[in-house]
């Protein structure tokens, strides 16, 4: 086999550095609406990445992930509006409260697999939605909570953009570290072969449960960031169609690749934004898109790209047969 020279850190991650640098200078020249969109995409990307911890790595189809997003958003909203707590407390408590919900829901859910897991997570998240929708005195029901104040320094979109970008980078690094740790590798192993992991003495349930809780943590953080961008939160944040949408993003981008969900989040958000400008029948367009996607690109965009790259790599390595 031909030897590949060991590349340096910068050359291996060149594309990553270029992308980060691009987004770092992006606000300096882009129009306001693009800054808004980009910030929203960062937040949704974080949400999708958190789902992929359960879906991609854990192999469990969660259809109730929007629940934690919703809980995180409402925590921030209620802490600032009702309890008048300082901003830093509100934004730090959101993921913690979401993680608590994830701990409870995960406790009952991760012992199931496949469609039963999907159904239970869906059921729980609808229950949370129903409460948010109905408990008018606490959550202001379907009116939602609007007019949420943001600290002076983050009022302008450029400042908030950098704030969210910074948090996203940190979270991505954290997720990456978690997934590459022995804990993360065990979760992956569980997806591949549950029985073998049980035989090896490791506690399957504990790993899946902890993974679920961490995923809920990051989803809650994403929810609170969105609430501060839009200054409002609505029960819709937790409706099952939102959970389906984020599953779609992960699949579209590719569940098997680390940045897959980010690509999916960006693509779907942009598509939704632009499709509804051009046609009132955006749901037909989205529906057809989903159908085409499932049929043509089951690996998602990044899966497809990976396939092509691997094919080219194989052609290079395999010697010509004379």
């Amino acid at each position, binding site marked *: 086999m031909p030897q590949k020279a060991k590349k340096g850190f910068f050359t291996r991650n060149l594309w990553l550095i270029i992308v980060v640098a691009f987004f770092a200078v992006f606000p300096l020249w882009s129009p*306001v609406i693009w800054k*808004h969109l980009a910030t929203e995409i960062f937040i949704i990307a974080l949400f999708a990445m958190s789902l992929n911890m359960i879906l991609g790595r854990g192999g469990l189809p969660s259809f109730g992930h929007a629940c934690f997003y919703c809980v995180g958003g409402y925590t921030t909203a209620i802490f600032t509006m009702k309890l008048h707590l300082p901003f830093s407390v509100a934004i730090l408590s959101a993921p913690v409260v979401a993680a608590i919900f994830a701990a409870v829901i995960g406790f009952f859910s991760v012992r199931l697999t496949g469609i039963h897991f999907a159904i239970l997570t869906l059921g729980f998240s609808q229950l949370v939605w129903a409460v948010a929708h109905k408990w008018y005195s606490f959550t202001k029901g379907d009116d939602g909570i*609007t007019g949420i104040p943001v600290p002076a320094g983050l009022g302008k979109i450029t400042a908030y953009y950098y704030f969210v970008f910074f948090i996203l980078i940190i979270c991505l690094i954290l997720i990456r570290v978690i997934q590459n740790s022995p804990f993360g590798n065990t979760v992956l192993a569980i997806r591949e072969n549950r029985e073998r992991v049980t035989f090896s003495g490791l506690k399957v349930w504990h790993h899946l449960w902890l993974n679920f809780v961490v995923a809920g943590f990051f989803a809650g953080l994403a929810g609170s960031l969105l609430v501060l961008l839009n200054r*409002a939160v*609505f029960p819709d944040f937790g409706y099952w169609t939102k959970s389906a949408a984020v599953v779609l993003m992960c699949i579209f981008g590719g569940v098997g690749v680390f940045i897959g969900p980010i690509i999916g989040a960006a693509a779907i958000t942009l*598509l939704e934004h632009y499709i509804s*400008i051009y046609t009132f029948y955006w*749901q037909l367009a989205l529906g057809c898109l989903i159908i085409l996607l499932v049929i043509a690109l089951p690996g998602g*965009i990044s899966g497809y790209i990976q396939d092509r790259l691997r094919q080219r790599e194989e052609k290079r390595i395999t010697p010509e047969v004379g």
Partner: protein
Amino acid sequence: MKSKMVKAVLFSGAIIVALMLSSLSDVSYAQAKKALPPIKIGIVQSLSGMVSDYALEDLEGFRVKIAEVNDKGGVMTKEGRRKIDLLVRDDMLKPDVAVKNAKELVLEQKCDFLVGVISSGVLLAVSEWCKENKVLLWGWDARTHHATQARGHRYFFRSSGDTWMNGHAAASFWKDQPFTKWGFINQDYSYGRSQFESFTIAMKKMKPGFTIVTEQWPKLGSTDFTPYITALMAANPEAVYTSLWGTDAMTFIKQAKGYGLFDKVKVCGLFWGMPLLRPMGQEMVEGVYCMTEYPFVYPGTPENKAFMDTYKNRTGQFPSDYSVLGYNAATFVLAGIEKAGTAKTEPLIDALEGISIKTIAPAKTITARKCDHQADYGIVIGKSKKSPDWPWFILEDIQVIPGGPTMRPCEEIMAERAAAKK
């Protein structure tokens, strides 16, 4: 493999093309000819969901008026005549989408101001955003009274009546009737709650002995009203007040018929005019008290007939309350632009405060009050009746209830706003 690649390329190509097209729209306006640039009005409306046909009628009514003005070359401003361009966005009945639409229309498409909203929940969210970003929002339909009362502000105006006015108008009629035991059925969301609040507050003030014997709160879009109907009847009300609309109103009436509700109690339906009577056709019940802002054949004035004809020629349909709302909203903003001579926000707002316009029916003019920017739009009440001339029921015994006296006094509103700030 190849077909997969083709599909992937088509996807990415479509995204790129879409992005390019959207930025192109700005370029073509930059290359404007000698003519003055058009005034861009951004419209945020709920075109999806239960409310979509009413939403479209708001829009069509608005368009009819704009077309009238554009045919003359545009609205007169200080610089000369400028045409009006409408950019319409669907907020999908979701407040966060509506705010996104507002951002896109104002920040990306550079609209001069915004018009719209049919959903009360959406209204509060968009109004908040407009207040923070100092963008004028003209409300043409969404009625929650909070939007011009406690949560009102300089940048929001409304030409439709609000829930406070509706409830007080109803009470001004019903206080003279001998019924004190009332049952209520309203959809469980902000509009339904506001209508319930305002009618009950007004009746408590005006009708001695007024009692609420039951409140029913079906959720929007329920297919089955039977448990609510039986619960309603079980409480033995003398009369029932409801703000149900759309498919819910239709379902309620059809199902309640079977229980004999309409024979036992008087039913008063808010906004049970054309938007309900027309799709119900012969399935409607006679003798129901319907309140509406636009009673179809009344008052038979020449202006009403002219409007009906123009609207019918343009859209192929007879107009309804919603078409008139849209038409009035357009009349207001155009009058404001002419008075101010510009579409710039601050002078336009100053011009709009206190402005009056002529309307089709039932009142002759309406005015946008200075203190809260709410128009004194009236309402009528009549009884439903079969008609030999039309495939739908019409109203008889029509009484007009003017808007002015039903509005909340300015001092009360200012006091509530001051209290809310603390």
